[in-house]
């Protein structure tokens, strides 16, 4: 070709630097123009928004800026504010939080035993970390380290005994090591966590709750021995029989051999966020399996099972939670054999669990309904039986679809734990605040406790919703 022989006069051998974009398409001015003032309507909205922000800030900032953290009564707070900022100045009196924060967190739990709820909370993180963050090691590391740090801080400010600090150090060092090298082993903590938590919080002997947990192991063991077809039913029957007849005597026997005992704590001293978290976590943990069973029952083609599930779900969803709590408080004693009187907190946990399970069932039913029929048919054509199909094919997909709804229900349950304040328990919003206000020094204090408790609720619920978004992203199989 002749063109090869012709050498061009000039060829640029290196790239030109990218030219700057046109003047009007970059910089703050253009961003403002695009996002805030793109038309007369948008400009109006922006000005309105600015006015709202300004009015909020101008009202609340002076109040925050004048806040007092060191005082022993509301009157003293007001005096300090008046001295410092002149008469008529408004200011927050966060001194009430400084003086009474332990009641908002622990209720009336004995001060010497504060290390127990703190350790329970630490263990909670150790127990859930391998479940919630099973894939991402770095998030798991950070969550565990953060929880450990939080425990340390709480132990320090509650002046807990030194050995409890050492215990928590060792616990979290072990947990972090395990999380790095054998995260699967952490699941042992998860399995035994319910027993540990009950033992730590209520004290007494750990063996009775332990034997209740053992019921599952016994039932499973027996069910493995009998032929297929009968195995599930036998397992359930054996478990129930163990709970009713053998758990208490065996626990008594083990207690004699190995007496491990903590000072017993009455349920009536539980309050504040300790109460909310105990009720919330138990109800959340129990309502998911119960909700799955209910959802499956509602999909079932066995008429009695189906109608039972429908009646239960519609009844629970049709009445307000507060009436159910009222039933737990007032009516349950009628439905049980005369003289039965079990713990109010346990009754409330049962009611909140049933309540949450009904909502959970509807959420999961939505997920089940969203699965294409082909998935069910595929499971059938592989020859899987009902439970295999559910466990291996249907539920993993249905639950993935329902994650936002499930976590939304969890958040709702946790928020609803505040309603126990209306049945004379010491929830952080109303119960504890009423107790604090009933003391003369803090009579008439409203906003500071509201802000304190509201912030804690916000942090917990917001983290839950962020976690659900993280989980959705992680499990997403589309748009890879």
């Amino acid at each position, binding site marked *: 070709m002749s063109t090869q022989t012709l050498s061009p006069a000039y060829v640029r051998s290196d790239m030109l630097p990218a030219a700057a974009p046109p003047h009007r398409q970059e910089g703050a001015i253009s961003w403002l123009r695009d996002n805030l003032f793109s038309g007369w309507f948008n400009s109006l*909205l922006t000005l309105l928004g*600015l006015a709202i922000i300004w009015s909020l800030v101008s009202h609340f900032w002076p109040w925050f800026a004048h806040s007092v953290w060191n005082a022993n009564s509301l009157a003293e707070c007001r005096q300090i504010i008046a001295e410092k900022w002149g008469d008529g100045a408004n200011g927050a009196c966060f001194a009430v939080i400084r003086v009474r924060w332990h009641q908002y967190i622990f209720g009336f739990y004995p001060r010497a035993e504060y290390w127990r709820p703190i350790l329970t909370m630490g263990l909670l993180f150790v127990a859930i970390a391998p479940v919630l963050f099973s894939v991402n090691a770095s998030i798991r590391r950070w969550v565990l380290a953060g929880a450990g740090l939080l425990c340390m801080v709480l132990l320090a400010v509650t002046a807990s005994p030194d050995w409890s600090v050492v215990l928590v150090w060792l616990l979290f060092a072990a947990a972090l090591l395990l999380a790095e090298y054998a995260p699967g082993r952490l699941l042992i903590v998860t399995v035994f966590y319910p027993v540990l938590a009950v033992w730590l919080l209520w004290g007494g002997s750990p063996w009775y709750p332990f034997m209740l947990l053992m019921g599952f192991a016994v039932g499973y063991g027996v069910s493995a021995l009998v032929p297929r077809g009968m195995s599930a039913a036998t397992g359930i029957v054996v478990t129930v029989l163990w709970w009713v007849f053998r758990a208490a005597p065996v626990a008594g026997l083990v207690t004699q051999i190995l007496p491990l005992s903590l000072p017993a704590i009455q349920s009536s001293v539980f309050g504040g966020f300790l109460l909310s978290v105990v009720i919330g976590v138990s109800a959340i943990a129990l309502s998911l399996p119960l909700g799955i069973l209910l959802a499956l029952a509602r999909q079932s083609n066995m008429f009695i099972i189906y109608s039972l599930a429908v009646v239960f779900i519609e009844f629970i969803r049709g009445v307000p939670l507060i009436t159910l709590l009222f039933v737990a408080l007032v009516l349950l004693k009628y*439905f049980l054999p005369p003289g039965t009187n079990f713990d109010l907190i346990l009754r409330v946990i049962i009611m909140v669990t049933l309540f949450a399970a009904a909502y959970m069932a509807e959420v999961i039913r939505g997920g089940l309904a969203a699965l294409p029929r082909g998935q069910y048919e595929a499971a059938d054509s592989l020859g899987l039986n009902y439970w295999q199909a559910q466990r291996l094919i249907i539920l993993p997909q249905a639950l993935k679809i329902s994650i936002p709804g499930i976590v939304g229900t969890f958040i709702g349950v946790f928020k609803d734990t505040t309603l126990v304040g209306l049945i004379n328990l010491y929830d952080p919003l*109303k119960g504890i605040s009423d107790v604090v206000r009933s003391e003369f020094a803090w009579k008439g204090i409203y906003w500071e406790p509201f802000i304190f408790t509201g912030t804690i609720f916000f942090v917990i619920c917001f983290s839950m919703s962020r976690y659900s978004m993280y989980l959705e992203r992680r499990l997403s199989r589309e748009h890879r």
Partner: protein
Amino acid sequence: MTESAPAGPPAPPFRLSMLIYDRQYRSLTIQVVVFILLMLLVSWIVHNTVLNLARLGKDINFSFLFNRAGYDIPQQLIPYDSDDTHLRAAMVGLLNTLYVSLLGCIAATVLGVVAGVLRLSNNWLIARIMTVYVEIFRNIPLLLWILIIYAAFTEITPGPREYRGENAREMFLGLFAPTNRYTAIPSVIAEHSPGVLAIGRIEIPWLAIMGIVFFIAAIVLRRWVNARAQRIQNSTGRRPTTWWINLALFAVPPIAIWLIFGLHLEVPELAGFNFKGGINVDNSLVALWLALSLYTGAFIAEIVRAGILAISKGQTEAAYALGLSPGWTMNLVILPQALRVIIPPLISQYLNLIKNSSLAVAVGYMDLRGTLGGTTVNQTGREMEGILLMMAIYLSISLSVSAVMNIYNNRVKLKER
């Protein structure tokens, strides 16, 4: 379909083990076992209840409903005083529940739609503000909001007397006066009032009845007008303009009533220690209503946002390509599809709001829980009857709302095979 099924091998003879190993019989076995267990449980509970009631010397008897209640209810939609029966007190409570729920549903819908649309706005600032609103209200318990708003009304607002004198407070827009006990709002007064319809002790103003009748008539006529327009469009290809007829249907009767009966606003005025004229709305109602609306509005905003995002942009583009105007695009293409996504969760939010209104007890608004489930139960000691009746009423409200909404939902649902 039976004839197409191939004639399989003859069914094997029944053996007892098939109750467990054969799928068909097993489901029967399971159901029978569950049914027996259920009956055992129910009879156990009934047995316990009978024993417990006998031990306490009580029975189950609803006649207490017809005894004198003997307590006052501050807010009442139907006349009531302490000489009335517990049944009437329960009715007052039920109406209070429905009243605050209705007001709450309306306000929450307006707020939720506005916030949901604005959250998708191009305006960066407004979208952020709405996100903050939604996240703050969704992640903090409703009880806290009720208590905060109630405290704001009782602690921050001035006493009625501060609206008088030299440096008096200004009324909001010159119409509303929030005070530490109630909020004074203007009322509508007719110069030539047509009087009231008295049913027993309940008095309903004729004006309200007329308003409702005209509104329903307008809805029916509007459907007829639109159906006629559709018929004409189908046969001739041209749609007659209907918007001015529809506008007139809804606008003319109120204006006519307004003019004929000489309606005007009566602005509350301070007379003595209290506001006279206008209506004094109890702060517990205002606080409960505001808290319920703001809280539920945040949830509805998320639902509306999800509904709008669920409609792909291609739908709008397709409608434009067909030559539909933006208004018709919204009416015929976007809204029918978005509503299908929005309606079911919206129903459950309404139901949540109705159930959440039972938190009224925290601020002393006497709703069903406050009257029947509260004072009545405490006074008569009939907790079993009172609570069960209250639950039954809540249940029937919920079930009927969801039934009505489900009918609507079925009408807008996508018809599939």
